[in-house]
């Protein structure tokens, strides 16, 4: 319990610092917040007055930050200057695509990566060589290159999958998001396969496993009870960190496949200097990263109770 409380306090501290930085960035922009909020448009005096009132630009910095944070905590991120809509509503309508994509990719990574790693680690020999070679190639290829190659081969060449869009309805979505999810998952799956392979190979040589073998326990039992349980700790870490990476990676993947997710909203907001959206998306991303890290830590202590007692 104390472990959890300590972690939660750390989480809140990180989020506070992150939100302060995200909000403070607005004031680092050449020309100050006004230049940023207006972007490339020149506003009429009424518009400028409206923006000053909306963003409370006449209040001191800390007061404004506190007001913004209070709204942000309740899910109110203000209004987009480009779309003239509520930022939360804009994000909510796009979050489905991104979440679907990240969950799909996570499933591919965990099943594919762990399966490849187990194959290489437990079988060894030629399977090991093939897995190592394939994972090196996948690790070196940037996601956007993988995505473009997949589009050229499977969408434009063979015509098996659509080139654009996220689809509607579950089956159609799976069909539309298969190439994006594969794109997003290849490098992480390759990395997870390596980690799984290394940790399974290490655990298989440990003394307690040798003891179990010499006592004549069934191989399947040894692998499940003694090898996998210990090997799971590094695997969970890497899988968790990779999911955090996937959220960032989805920004690039959504751009390749023209998906209307949070990532493409973010990129467009940067280009259009729509700062309310930039602030909101960054804050949501950072929150997601810290939450995932927390879940990974909790998984550790479930797998290895010694850790939570330290």
């Amino acid at each position, binding site marked *: 319990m104390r472990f959890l409380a300590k972690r939660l306090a750390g989480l809140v501290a990180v989020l506070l610092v992150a939100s302060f930085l995200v909000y403070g960035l607005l004031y680092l922009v050449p020309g100050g917040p006004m230049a940023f909020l207006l972007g490339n448009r020149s506003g009429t005096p009424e518009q400028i007055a409206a923006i000053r009132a909306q963003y409370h630009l006449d209040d001191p910095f800390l007061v404004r930050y506190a007001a913004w944070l209070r709204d942000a905590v309740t899910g109110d991120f203000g209004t987009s200057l480009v779309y003239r809509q509520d930022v939360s509503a804009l994000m909510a309508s796009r979050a489905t695509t991104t979440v679907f994509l990240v969950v799909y990719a996570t499933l591919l990574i965990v099943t594919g990566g762990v399966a490849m790693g187990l194959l290489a680690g437990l079988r060894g020999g030629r399977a090991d060589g093939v897995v190592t070679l394939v994972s090196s190639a996948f690790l070196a290829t940037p996601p956007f290159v993988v995505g473009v190659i997949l*589009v050229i081969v499977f969408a434009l060449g063979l015509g098996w999958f659509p080139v654009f869009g996220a689809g509607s309805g579950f089956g159609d979505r799976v069909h539309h998001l298969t190439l994006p999810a594969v794109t997003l998952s290849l490098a992480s799956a390759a990395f997870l396969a390596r980690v799984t392979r290394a940790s399974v190979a290490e655990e298989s040589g440990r003394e307690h496993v040798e003891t179990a073998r010499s006592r004549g326990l069934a191989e399947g039992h040894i692998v499940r009870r003694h090898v996998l349980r210990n090997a799971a700790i590094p695997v969970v870490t890497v899988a968790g960190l990779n999911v955090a990476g996937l959220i960032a990676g989805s*920004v690039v993947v959504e751009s390749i496949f023209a998906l209307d997710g949070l990532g493409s909203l973010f990129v467009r907001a940067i280009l259009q200097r729509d700062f309310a959206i930039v602030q909101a998306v960054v804050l949501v991303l950072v929150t997601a990263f810290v939450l995932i890290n927390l879940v990974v830590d909790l998984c550790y202590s479930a797998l290895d109770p010694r850790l939570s007692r330290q």
Partner: protein
Amino acid sequence: MTRRLGGPGVAAAVLLAAIVAITLLAPLLAPYNPDLPDLFNALGGATAAHPLGGDALGRDVLSRLMYGARTTLLAPVLVICVASAAGTTLAIVAAWAGGKVDAVVSRLLDVLFSVPGIVFALVTVAVLGPGVPGVVIGLAVAYTPYVARVVRSAALRERGLPYVAAAWVQGRSATAICLRHLLPNLRPIIVAQSVSALGFAVIDVAAVSFLGLGVQPPTADWGLMVKSGLDSAMRGQPLEALSAGLLIALVVAAVNLLGDRLGRQS
């Protein structure tokens, strides 16, 4: 050096040296002006005159690839130089001071490390506007913990060795010990870690350019060429996207291999 890198390591180093040489000599080697449109070559396939065809404006893809290595490689190298310098300084200060300083620096590095690099780049680009400077600053911050965490633990180990205590007893100042003794001994680890970070930096810089937020057209850049090549591919000509994409993958694979070899020795 050759024996330490092994066959594949030498091959990777030679490949990278060749790419750097070609891009430096691009004005002499490139068959065409990389920015010159030629309507007869627009979306053209491979011919004797244009071995890799033309892009949507008919610019020669081979010539653009030769020039394009400049931004594609220079920006990540810049990122890693800044990140290594900052990371090494933080690491040595933290390891030397210990106690509260070390705890604060370590926590800060952990937090930075938990946010993916590309997010930093996107945030700095949002503030400074699209372009290479924003990308380099953001990624330099992002890669600082990557170098600092490894160097810090090595510096802690080194600090506990008797020669450091001996120098301290002889009245050498902390700065002198760190610069004259610690830094040279840590160099192999710093180099290995920086080279393996370089592979990721190449990917991140190219990705930001691919998003349209890094290198700006009409500059020839591999990341941008994958982007414009994707549009060409939709119109039936995949050569530009494939050649630029494979080159990026090749460079990253070579850098990763080199980093791996250097890491094994240190």
